[in-house]
């Protein structure tokens, strides 16, 4: 389940104006994992994402899809882009049609599928993001969070193996963030590999299996999210540390061992559960 789906080898990218956006990055995205990409604004997250879908071509280095070097021909790109779905940050700059159903059909229609199949895929994708009821609404009457979900549906309808989302939580209120997190979990359970860029360290810590941290286009850290996010250099770079991890560590230091099977809790709910469990045990004793 965890071989490399997509591998970046010594990838560098310079924008035409000479700015180095990525500098010698080597990493791999593992199949079936939830990966977060963290880094300050301008660290190269979006540039990296545009490489994953073949929109940008590295100035140096090589990308591999399941061990095969990426083929930048028309056919190769068609193949890659049907496997890698890219959801941009601003929904208004990626929705083409004013009708929800039409917009979701855009990708599968581009794949040249039969109309019957497209219709089924559109219905499935809208169901997956819980937007079936809005299928016939005009896009401009939807809320920001709903537009985001339409964007995700538009990518899901292409049935990709890998979904890449650029700051999906940005601009969403707490309730919408929760709904979106449920959608992301759903993608994971149906076997889609998910990568997201985020600034929300607490979410990253609770959700991700793997973390990639970029600094000025260079790879600062890459590995198990629970470990990477507790590295001091990562925390210095990001200017923050996961709150749940801080509390759990302090509690453990003060003698309350909140670890579950030897691991620190990673989300608020896990932490609260561990505390009440400890409390219950103490009272029983």
């Amino acid at each position, binding site marked *: 389940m965890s071989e490399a789906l997509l591998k970046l080898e010594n990838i560098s990218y310079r924008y035409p104006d000479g700015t180095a956006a990525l500098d010698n990055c080597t990493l791999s995205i593992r199949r079936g994992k939830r990966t977060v990409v963290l880094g300050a604004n301008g660290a190269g997250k979006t540039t990296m994402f*545009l490489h994953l*879908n073949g*929109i940008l071509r590295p100035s140096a280095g090589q990308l591999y899809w399941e061990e095969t070097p990426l083929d930048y021909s*028309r056919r190769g*790109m*068609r193949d890659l*882009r*049907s496997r890698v*779905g*890219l959801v*941009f940050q*601003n929904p*208004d*700059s*990626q*929705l*083409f*049609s*004013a*009708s929800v*159903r*039409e*917009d979701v*059909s*855009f*990708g599968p*229609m*581009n*794949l040249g599928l039969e*109309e019957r199949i*497209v*219709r089924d895929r*559109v219905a499935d994708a809208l169901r997956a993001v819980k937007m079936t009821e809005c299928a016939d*609404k*005009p*896009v*401009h*009457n939807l809320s920001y969070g709903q537009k985001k979900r339409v964007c995700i549906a*538009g*990518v899901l309808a*292409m049935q990709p193996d890998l979904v890449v989302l650029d700051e999906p939580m940005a601009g969403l209120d707490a309730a919408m963030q929760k709904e979106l997190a449920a959608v992301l979990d759903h993608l994971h359970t149906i076997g889609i590999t998910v990568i997201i860029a985020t600034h929300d360290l607490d979410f990253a810590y609770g959700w991700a299996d793997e973390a990639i941290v970029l600094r000025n286009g260079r790879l600062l850290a890459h590995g198990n999210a629970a470990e990477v996010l507790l590295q001091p250099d990562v925390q210095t770079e990001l200017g923050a540390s996961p709150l749940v991890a801080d509390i759990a560590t302090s509690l453990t230091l003060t003698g309350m061992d909140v670890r579950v099977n030897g691991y620190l809790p990673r989300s608020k709910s896990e932490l609260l559960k561990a505390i009440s469990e400890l409390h219950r045990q103490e009272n029983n004793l």
Partner: protein
Amino acid sequence: MLTEQSAYTNNWRQVSPVAKGCFSLCGMVAAFAAGSPRTALAVAFILSAVTIFGAGVPAMRYLRVAAPPLLFLTASGLSLLISLDFGSSTHGISLHLAEAEFPRIAQVCCRSLASLAALLFLALTTPLSDIISLLRRCKVPDTLLDLMTLCYRTLFVLSEAVHDTITAQSARLGYTSLRLSLRSLGGVVANLTVQVWQRSQALHLAALARNNDGALRFLEPVYPDSPRTISIAATAGGLIIALSMVLP
């Protein structure tokens, strides 16, 4: 945006756009077939009654949508009727009322009114995305339809951007005097120009990411029971044409 509201909320939202397009086309043919201003007026009346009572578009909204084109029609009617005369008489400039032309002008105006009613019927009952898919079935060139699709979508995106910019400028006293207003307006135009460029770039990337290689293709909407509604619309349209030809 009023047109937009009706298009999505009228009673006939779920009726096939082919049927509505067909009826609208028949209305236009009837407008041209009408032999007298009175008949053309009758056609206009029937078409607007169908829109208001059949499709359930509120009468007030109908009038508000119709007001700008009506104003335009009045202005052109008057300009046909009245002509300015320079220097042919001793008084210098004089106004002439083209009395002899009156029947023809009335005919043109009433026909325009009937055509307007036919177009309003389509615009107020059918969302633009449906009209575009209808035009696609009529084999209108893809490039034109892609432009329509993008214009329609970006209309809302950009109007929001304009609104946001103006709000931000007003919050910083950008419209307190005429001079400042002109300056701020210039700012809106400059800002929007850059935004249009950036957004077109972003849309291009988004299209590439979803495997696009040229024409924008979408799923055609399906409508229940279309053959029945199309034949009803065609019959009704045919009746209006017949009426306009029979009436003197």
